[in-house]
């Protein structure tokens, strides 16, 4: 590391221990340094003349090397840090094994519990997933007369064969019009968070959000295939991670709607600041004029999704009712 000093560093040639009485700017003792500088070494490694200037031969080295000024050796330092990180990672894994794993049950329960059997034509495939096929708006083809806004008496994401999409929003509520003239009602307690040319986002200040987007497709297109084709846009993978979704199930058409399908999903919305677990319902309706509407209702956290339907189901119902009535 450094070459041997020309003299024992423990016995300084001229120890500057006691500086003389100093003037105002206290010059240090004018003695030679404690070590006797060696003749400029020709091939001195790193230490000793760091600026490439006049080489200063290190006269001595600290016994034991500079590593003696630290509590850990190289191996110990690296080992402690890596072992610590691995141990904490293992704790994270153990925590996940203990606290995780029940989401799937909750997901299933939420989407199946209390299901009223749907009509034959909308019965899902026997093994077609856990989604009940007519979550909201499994309406009779004829919308109600509109005199009484009639979301399900007990709003729920669960299908009610008699459920009727609300044609008109509640009195006093606004209606937002997006592309293709599609109207989305803003019910009391809800507000518009953002609106584009063909989409709109509503929120209820209670962690429920309804997002609606419209476009034009082939009128013969099946709503399920529209969902399949749009899923990556509606639930982008870069933010909707850990996505788990039910199979896409067809629902009973109503009014001018010729095809309806729906699915439910759970995901973790992820960004640099936080991750938010959420559950959502996605419905696609295709009208006979080729206008398609995809509407999602999301709530965080997932275990409150079922209860939150009391808030968002009327919005979804009313939107589908208006869409089918056009």
């Amino acid at each position, binding site marked *: 590391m*450094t070459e041997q000093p020309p003299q024992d560093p423990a016995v300084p040639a001229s120890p500057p221990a006691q500086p003389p009485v100093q003037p*105002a*700017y*206290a010059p*240090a003792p004018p*003695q*030679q*340094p404690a070590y006797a500088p060696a003749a400029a070494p020709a091939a001195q490694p790193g230490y000793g003349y*760091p600026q490439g200037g006049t080489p*200063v031969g290190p*006269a*001595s080295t*600290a*016994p*034991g090397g*500079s590593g*003696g*000024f*630290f*509590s*850990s050796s*190289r191996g110990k*330092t*690296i080992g*402690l*840090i*890596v072992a610590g*990180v*691995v141990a*904490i*990672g*293992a*704790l*994270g*894994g153990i925590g*996940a094994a203990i606290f*995780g794993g029940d989401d*799937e049950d909750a*997901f299933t329960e939420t989407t199946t519990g209390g299901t009223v059997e749907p009509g034959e034509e909308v019965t899902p495939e026997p093994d077609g997933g856990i989604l009940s096929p007519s979550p909201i708006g499994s309406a009779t083809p004829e919308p109600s007369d509109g005199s009484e806004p009639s979301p399900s008496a007990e709003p729920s994401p669960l299908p009610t064969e008699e459920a009727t999409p609300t044609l008109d929003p509640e009195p006093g509520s606004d209606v937002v019009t997006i592309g293709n003239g599609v109207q989305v009602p803003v019910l009391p307690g809800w507000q518009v*968070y*953002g609106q584009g040319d063909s989409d709109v*986002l509503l*929120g209820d200040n209670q962690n429920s*959000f309804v*997002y609606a987007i419209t476009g034009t497709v082939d009128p013969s297109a099946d709503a399920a295939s529209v969902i399949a084709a749009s899923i990556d846009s509606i639930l*982008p*993978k870069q933010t*909707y*991670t*850990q*996505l*788990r979704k039910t199979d896409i199930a067809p629902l009973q058409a109503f009014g001018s709607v010729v095809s309806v399908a729906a699915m439910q999903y759970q995901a*973790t919305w*992820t*960004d*640099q*600041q*936080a*991750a938010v677990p959420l559950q959502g319902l996605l419905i696609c309706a295709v009208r006979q004029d080729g206008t398609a509407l995809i509407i999602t209702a999301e709530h*965080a956290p997932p275990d409150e999704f079922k209860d939150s339907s009391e808030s968002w189901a009327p919005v979804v119902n009313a939107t589908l009712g208006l869409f089918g009535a056009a």
Partner: protein
Amino acid sequence: MPCPTCSTQSPEVALYCYRCGTSLRGSASTRAGSYAVQSSEGVNQFALISTIMPHTNRQTADNYRWAMILSAVLIVAATGLGLLPIAVAAAAFLIPVAYLVYIYDVNMWEDAPLPVVAALFLGTGVLAVLVTLFFFRWVFDEQFNSFAAGGRVGIESLSIPALLIFAVVLPIVAEVAKNVGGVFLASRPQFDDMIDGLTFGIAAGTAYAAFETIVLYSSVFTSGDFRTTDGLASWAVVVVNLMVVKALIYGTATGIAVAAFSGKGEGYDGFTGSYFLAFGLAVAANIGYWLGVRLLAYVPFGQALGLLWGFVILAVLVVRIRVMMQASLLEAAVEDAVRTDGLRSKRATVDDSYCPECENLLLDNSNFCMVCGTSVRSSSHQARRAMNEPTAPAAPTAGGVA
């Protein structure tokens, strides 16, 4: 050879004034090219280890560098395998674990390891959990969830109140919480050096980041999917952010504030104007970081751009720390060198000892190594203790305190 700054007579072979650190062989820019904490590096160099771990020397800095690289590789591999609970937990605590080992390694906690660990890691961790739950779960959860829901609509859906809450108010409150433990320790007589303040501030900031991360990403521990197969690219960006950028931005920003609390001279300065300026800088850095992250989330590749933005903020903070430490160490040394009251700085060497950086002899009453120019204040506490004992030269033992 007289020093042009403090007139101290240095040996002819000296490259630096051993009292005030002035370069004796070049211009003032020569000193600017040699960081007082680690002289082989420039002041304006983005050198992470010597900045956040100022008591290391070149050799031991390599130990931390390799340990963190190895750990980071393992964490990224876990992310790639979709083992998010493992990856997120390990990423959150990589820097705090490394820092805890560092504090032990350089004996930062002197003879009081329990209070130091409790104040910096546990106390700050509890505050982090409370503040995070308050903002993200108890009071403003709806506002934050609007970020999630609004991503598809675009920046038109950006809620200004939510932005102010999570990118302005939260960083202010969090910075107060991060400062508590560091300031408490920096006001203790044995920890009143500016480098101690910097170290404690960084430790508290990284601990805050770790506990905040665990709360904010707790869903990965409760998810039904132990192993994730989709969205891994996003998670890789997030994990790198949690592991490096967020932790170090929090740490370095708080380090600047607590270092200003310590002040450059003897004793600690306390809540002076300098402290509040530094605190403001720390808050501004956090606000700038989170504002950038939130706004970039609405553009394509927003997460990756947010990560890059974080690196920019981190680079600014790192250079700021180095400039601050350089100025403070040199100014304090000059003030010490020209003092006329005959008192000796408790931070200067007593008798001859060895420079932990280059292993050359340090003269009695040195503030700097006259060969490599490294400040003796950046030595480990074991080395400092040896330097301050009048039994020269110090002979460090193989296993610990000399």
